[in-house]
């Protein structure tokens, strides 16, 4: 009894008569008609450009398409000139495993054995502030569709989150909603959540960041691209019906083209239907397996405008579509609105005439609604009709790829020098720095209970980590790990990182530090880093200060990728994250993907075996600016920790080799919160303590105990080494010239973390402090 088997055919739509259809013919005859381009977000020069491209004024429907596709979100007009560096700064080493690079829905990386992996990170920031549950849920839904459209089976998700101050009255609303939404959608798709981030900072109060990452795997032969080739092939829209979701400005247009009927209300937010998406996943995979689609594209921002123009311009260049064939949830939608609608859980595909019946059989099996909209042509034109009348006649490239590009002015902010000069050390906030044993113990406890360093299990307990049966590591280890092939154990590791405070102090190096940390997290788990995806969350590009932050961050990130030898394969830019004139901290969230030949070799982040030797890898400098400690004391100034990418690479190689050869049983990298945080986390992982003495570190590096514990110097990790492997491990570090020093032993009996010069800390008490914070604020 579903309507799936019939669909709607051209010209039979009820309500066709309701609109004053603005045809191409009419547009040519009425050049002086006023159009609401400003309300739709276009600038005067952009509208003039549209007129120039078309050689006449656009129709209402064309205006709708150009306005959404030329928006910042879809056209990357402010960032494009800078993003090029990701494609330009690429070495042979970086190209080696890249099967599909930037520009497609998501990049694809070769895993070997005929397997490939695709992953991407995206933002859903402002919808998640307006309606946290649905905003976050549809964020997961959108990124998962990107992965499906590459031909892959999605296998896991991650959720880097940034909220306002933990004690601000509005934070609980956003936190509860976003976490429940991510869980509600991701859990219902059967995708394990294998990691993420959680940061509280008042700079995100009115602009929380809800980023979502999805990863999928496929066989090489299943890779699908978004292009419409083959004259005469059919174009089909399937999945959910089209409603008025996310058309915002289009209601302006609606009022223009309506007769007398009042448009019904347009939804303020999009509501996700995870069940519909789960069914879409399965039916798409059946389509791929039986090779029933030639090209496929998910519908996200800019909906049908985006899907038709991208499919057409990436293929043979032409397409004809009858818009009244679109199945609607709300019959009052105008043609322009249908083109702009961002209704969720929809896909568009190109199918050869021979495969139509088989395609329909798959749709019917899964009870998915679909409708045939038109076909691929070789005319180089995208032609959209409404009941036969031509309402769009454009070169699809001009819509999808030739949008405006701006060289926005940027300059190093005037305040940057003053901020960098204001070091934490010696500042008012640094008064009373702890040094007595009891004070140091109290400081460590305070650190691990602080909003950013506390246990995230309040969040991760709401996420299914097991579904799929391939999760080898997730919270609280450094990277999430999923198996791809059961026979060989082939698998992937993923970590996402960003430090907005570092990036605020120095955007070039801050972005590199985000990459360095994600890279380090992946290597710490034992995986070989292979590829990068990034989500650049910044303020307004029209502010030269912010534009400079963005330019510097992209330059820094692309430079660092060259040194680490891993390419950016895709990502997303989210701008205008600011309240009034106050932007968020520049927050480039960087995801690194690594590969395991056998996930059984993964290294967890906690100690287990009594008596194993604990080593600190890397050297420690006095680097407290921008640190969690200075943040806890309310200071932000100075310079972030130094970046040493050669050292990161060397450390990575040690950690990967040690894991492969069974030389370490645990490894945990040092990042926010420094050594103090790493020691506590490694102890709490399995509830096994240690006895630590840092004298050798203090002597070698010339730092005091407080600095050794709280400094955030990069390129460091702690590992535990079985007694039998100690010589081999030390030899390896020596041979590679990498600083390593034994700082203690695992103590399975005591239930304590003992650090010389610090009062002995009881693990049960530490755990209580670590785990109490989120429940205290969020119930």
């Amino acid at each position: 009894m579903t309507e799936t088997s019939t669909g709607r055919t051209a010209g039979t739509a009820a309500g066709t008569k309701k609109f004053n259809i603005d045809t191409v013919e009419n547009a040519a005859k009425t050049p002086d008609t006023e159009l609401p381009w400003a309300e739709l977000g276009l600038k005067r020069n952009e509208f003039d450009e549209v007129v120039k491209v078309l050689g006449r004024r656009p129709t209402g429907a064309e205006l709708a398409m150009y306005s959404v596709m030329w928006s910042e979100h879809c056209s990357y007009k402010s960032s494009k000139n800078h993003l090029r560096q990701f494609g330009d700064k690429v070495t042979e080493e970086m190209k080696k495993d890249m099967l599909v690079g930037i520009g497609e829905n998501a990049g694809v990386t070769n895993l070997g054995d005929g397997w490939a992996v695709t992953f991407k990170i995206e933002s859903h920031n402002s919808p998640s502030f307006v309606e946290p549950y649905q905003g976050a849920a549809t964020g997961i839904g959108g990124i998962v569709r990107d992965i499906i459209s590459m031909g892959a089976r999605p296998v896991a998700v991650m959720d880097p989150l940034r909220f306002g101050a933990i004690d601000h009255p509005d934070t609980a609303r956003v936190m509860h909603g976003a976490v429940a939404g991510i869980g509600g959608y991701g859990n219902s798709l059967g995708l394990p959540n294998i990691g993420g981030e959680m940061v509280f900072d008042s700079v995100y109060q009115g602009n929380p960041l809800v980023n979502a990452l999805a990863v999928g795997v496929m066989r090489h032969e299943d890779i699908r691209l978004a292009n419409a080739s083959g004259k005469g092939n059919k174009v089909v829209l399937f999945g959910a019906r089209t409603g008025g979701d996310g058309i915002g400005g289009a209601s302006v247009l609606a009022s223009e083209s309506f007769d007398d009927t009042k448009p019904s209300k347009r939804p303020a937010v999009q509501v996700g239907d995870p069940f519909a998406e789960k069914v879409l996943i399965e039916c798409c995979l059946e389509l791929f397996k039986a090779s029933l689609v030639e090209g496929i594209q998910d519908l996200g921002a800019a909906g049908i405008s985006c899907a038709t123009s991208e499919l057409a311009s990436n293929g043979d260049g032409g397409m004809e579509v009858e818009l009244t064939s679109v199945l609607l949830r709300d019959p009052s939608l105008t043609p322009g609105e249908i083109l702009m609608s961002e209704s969720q859980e929809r896909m568009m595909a190109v199918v050869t005439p021979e495969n139509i019946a088989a395609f329909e059989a798959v749709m019917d099996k899964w009870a998915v609604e679909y409708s045939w909209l038109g076909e691929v042509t070789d005319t180089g034109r995208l032609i959209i009709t409404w009941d036969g009348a031509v309402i769009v006649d454009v070169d699809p490239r001009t819509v999808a790829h030739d949008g405006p590009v701006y060289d926005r002015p940027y300059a190093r902010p005037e305040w940057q020098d003053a901020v960098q000069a204001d070091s934490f050390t010696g500042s008012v906030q640094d008064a009373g720095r702890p040094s007595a044993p009891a004070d140091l113990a109290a400081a460590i406890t305070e650190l691990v209970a602080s909003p950013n360093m506390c246990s995230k299990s309040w969040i991760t307990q709401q996420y299914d980590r097991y579904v799929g049966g391939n999760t080898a590591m997730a919270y609280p280890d450094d990277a999430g790990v999923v198996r791809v092939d059961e026979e060989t154990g082939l698998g992937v590791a993923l970590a996402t990182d960003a430090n907005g405070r570092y990036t605020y102090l120095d955007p070039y190096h801050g972005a590199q530090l985000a990459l360095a940390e994600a890279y380090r997290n992946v290597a710490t788990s034992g995986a070989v880093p292979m590829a990068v995806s990034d989500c650049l969350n910044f303020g307004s590009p029209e502010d030269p200060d912010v534009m400079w932050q963005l330019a510097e961050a992209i330059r820094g990130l692309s430079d660092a990728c060259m040194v680490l030898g891993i390419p950016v394969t895709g990502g997303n830019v989210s701008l205008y994250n600011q309240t009034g004139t106050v932007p968020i901290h520049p927050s480039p969230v960087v995801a690194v993907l690594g590969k395991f030949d056998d996930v059984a070799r993964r290294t967890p982040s906690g100690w287990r075996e009594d008596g194993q030797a604990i080593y600190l890898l890397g050297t420690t400098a006095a680097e407290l600016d921008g640190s969690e400690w200075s943040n806890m004391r309310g200071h932000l100034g100075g310079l972030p920790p130094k970046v040493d990418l050669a050292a990161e690479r060397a450390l990575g190689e040690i950690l990967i080799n040690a894991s492969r050869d069974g030389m370490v049983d645990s490894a945990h990298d040092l990042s926010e919160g420094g050594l103090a945080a790493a020691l506590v986390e490694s102890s709490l992982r399995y509830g096994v303590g240690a006895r630590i003495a840092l004298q050798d570190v203090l002597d070698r590096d010339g730092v005091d105990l407080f600095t050794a514990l709280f400094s955030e110097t990069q390129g460091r990790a702690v590992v535990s080494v079985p007694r039998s492997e100690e010589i081999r491990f030390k030899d390896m570090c020596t041979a590679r010239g990498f600083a390593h020093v034994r700082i203690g032993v695992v103590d399975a009996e005591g239930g304590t973390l003992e650090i010389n010069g610090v009062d002995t800390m009881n693990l049960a008490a530490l755990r209580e402090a670590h785990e109490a914070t989120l429940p205290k604020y969020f119930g």
Partner: protein
Amino acid sequence: MTELPLIGGTADAPGPGTLTGARIGVITFPGTLDDRDAARAVRLAGATPVALWHADTTLGDVDAVVIPGGFSYGDYLRAGAIARFAPLMSVIIDAANSDARLPVLGICNGFQILTESHLLPGSMIKNDHLKFMCRDQILRVENTTTAWTRDYAAGQEITVPLKNQDGQYLADEKTLDALEAEGRVVFRYVGFNPNGSRRDIAGISNAAGNVVGLMPHPEHAVETGFGPELGSSTDGLGFFTSVLNKIVGDNK
């Protein structure tokens, strides 16, 4: 290739299990999530998983059926409410009640479907804390005579993952007393009741012991390195070996 290809269905799994005689069906509804995982558990236990489709009208020659976890039809109305009316469910209900007493295991959403089908008494409502909860959960096996628990020792404590939003088991006092009296409380939560279930009940059986339902996920504790870190991490395998041994024994 993996034994259960990531792309493609369970039917594409190469080769049967070691005990090729035993065929255990795993049903997929639209919205089912843990079907591949259940099939993997069946295989690791030595039997052959057989993919069943909710719209089918016959069971074929399967010796037992697993109704796996997930959100059938989205579970927006009530967990299991719509799935209960699937064509294959009526066949399963009849087979479970027939003299042959087809062994049926409902896990999580499967348990909810079994209560909605009235194969098992009581029902599940939202967790008392109202949130989805995913954790490693200790259970006590209280009845080792059912088709799905004969390989466990009486009173044995096992650790298996738990992950759900609507896991709070309830039934009226009379029903609960009867379940206790007849030994039909098969699993109880130990140490921590994760959802407010009455009398710490995690799973129950029908009177004959062929139909068992529980909220936690034994199919996620069958492989070292991919299940709970506590306990043996393969504590769930006993469900599948139990039914396999029963099938093999019955067929002798």
